[in-house]
């Protein structure tokens, strides 16, 4: 058969482009096969790693899950000394501190995102975006340290008395009791600061993906700039904004060090945000190296397994929500 000839200069030999057309030479050389095998192995390493992580954590936690069954999730008695393990206080603490962080961070983060995407003057946009990104670059342990030294005393001496006595909220169960500095409230505030850059980064990207025509149409219909955002941009980006919030939630659920340092680490369920608490991640961080007997270790790994499931679900939902907006844009 005729070999392809070297084309003369000027003759168009552009190859058809498109994903279905293979540009690969027919017979793969050993080098090619080695290369393809290597990148395939690297790609497969990711699913394998996730499976291994899940298996190892579940296998480690299995003795506890088998012994306590469902009561591991519902019992609120966590007593390593007597070998009784109920994860409810830790699960409760994780959910409450994350929810509190979302409540505090979401309005601010959306405000930042909308301001950066729509309103910020050019000279302010770059530096402001840089500073907000910098929040994400600060290590968790530094947040925790700052929390101990600055935030916790501030909460104990100013914020908690203000909320409880000045606003008279001390009568409600949520703000009652002595004002411990290290508390659920401190964990929620520090988490809010930490997840804000994640929510605002995703939200900003989603907002910038909203087509210009959407904005122009609203303005042409007589909307003010705020009405444009509220009526034309936000509804269009809604699912992506929820995706950004879910990304923040995923971060908050798994955050360990800063929370461990400010939450007080007490395995009790209390309605009051002023009381100390515990989270799943901080139980593990706090007790893992000190756990001497196998059941205690396995209980900690069982908590890790529960945490793993929750975060995988939250992250999958987050990704799906963001993907929906980007798909609409390309469609």
């Amino acid at each position: 058969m005729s070999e392809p000839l070297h084309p003369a200069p000027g003759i168009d030999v552009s190859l058809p482009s498109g994903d279905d057309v293979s540009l690969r030479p027919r017979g793969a050389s050993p080098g090619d096969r080695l290369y393809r095998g290597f990148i395939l192995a690297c790609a497969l390493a990711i699913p394998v790693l996730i499976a291994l992580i899940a298996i190892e954590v579940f296998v480690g936690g299995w003795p506890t899950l088998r012994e306590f069954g469902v009561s591991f999730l519902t019992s609120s008695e966590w007593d390593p000394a007597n070998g009784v393990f109920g994860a409810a206080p830790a699960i409760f603490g994780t959910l409450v501190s994350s929810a509190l962080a979302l409540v505090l961070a979401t309005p601010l983060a959306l405000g930042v995102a909308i301001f950066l995407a729509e309103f910020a003057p050019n000279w302010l946009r770059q530096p402001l975006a840089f500073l907000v990104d910098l929040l994400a670059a600060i290590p968790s342990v530094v947040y925790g340290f700052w929390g101990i030294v600055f935030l916790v005393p501030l909460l104990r001496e100013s914020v908690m008395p203000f909320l409880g006595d000045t606003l008279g909220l001390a009568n409600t169960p949520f703000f009652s009791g002595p004002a411990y500095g290290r508390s659920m409230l401190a964990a929620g505030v520090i988490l809010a600061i930490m997840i804000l850059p994640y929510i605002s980064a995703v939200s900003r990207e989603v907002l910038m993906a909203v087509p210009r025509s959407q904005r122009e149409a609203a303005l042409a219909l007589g909307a003010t700039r705020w009405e444009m955002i509220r009526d034309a941009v936000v509804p269009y980006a809604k699912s992506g904004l929820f995706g950004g919030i879910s990304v923040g939630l995923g971060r908050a659920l798994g955050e360990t060090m800063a929370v461990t340092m400010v939450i007080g680490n007490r395995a009790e369920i209390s309605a009051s945000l002023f009381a100390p608490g515990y989270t799943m991640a901080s139980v593990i961080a706090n007790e893992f190296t000190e756990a001497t007997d196998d059941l205690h270790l396995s209980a900690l790994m069982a908590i890790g397994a529960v945490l793993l499931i929750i975060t995988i679900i939250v992250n999958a939902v987050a990704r799906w929500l963001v993907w929906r907006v980007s798909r609409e844009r390309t469609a």
Partner: protein
Amino acid sequence: MTISPPQAPQQRPSSSQRQTPLATRVQRDAAERAAKSIRGRRIRSRIVIGLMFLASALAVLPLLLILFHLLREGLQSVSPSFFTELPAPPGDPGGGMANAIIGTLILITVAAAVGLPVGIGAGMYVAENRGTRLASLVRFLADVLNGLPSIVIGIFAWQVLVRPIGNFSALAGGVALGVMMIPLVTRSTEEMIRLVPNSLREAALALGYSEARTSLSIVLRTALPGIVTGALVAVSRIAGETAPLLFTALGNQFWSLALDQPIAALPLQIYYYATSPYAEQRALAWAGALVLIGIVLLISLGARMATRNRFGLGSGD
């Protein structure tokens, strides 16, 4: 000055063409506000924008406070001996974190040795097999891996590398950090390789380059500055991680460079000292935090420079 009320939306158009929700919403709101003056609406708009500016200022405030405290407390305690000496016994003044600084560098090196090849390889696979089911799955799972709590990855490393071997080690800590790097490097590599024009690849193949050589010496090399940036960003993310090291690298008060022994790390040392009852140790923790942030920011700055370099190259063609 008042604006005449816009026409209320006519009853639904009889044609099959549906009215866009946007127009409905805007007209409805405009109709609601028809009685209000345009001035009121503009003022309202101004107020909301002002509130968003306030939100931005409020969001940045903690950052400024943290940096302020870090500089004020940290600069007092950073001394030459901080970089050259071992931790002093509790209660004794002086001492440093030399071993922790070296330990962090060693852990980062191990993490990069694990995370970079796998991450870059996976990123190349995803970019070159775009659209296939496996590539989409790997991309999705990279995001899932990225979202896993770092403490869970610590448990994994403990189960695989500490429990069977019987002692805590720098290797286990480095591998835990490396696992965290993989998804970051995968996603950034993929994005960078997608930026390489297809014509470059086609030209190389047309010249008779093998597929492997095209990918490695043309595509990868073109994307290299971007991949370096991604790698540096990934390193800066994991450099400050503490949770996965708690029960893998464990920390060490003495000099140790051995991979099979517990090793000190800056974030661990900060954690132990931050919760210490001794004022000297808390002062050292501030210094450690300042140095750690300095390292993280330096690496991020390096990443930015590498990006700038890439754009410099890009403008040439």
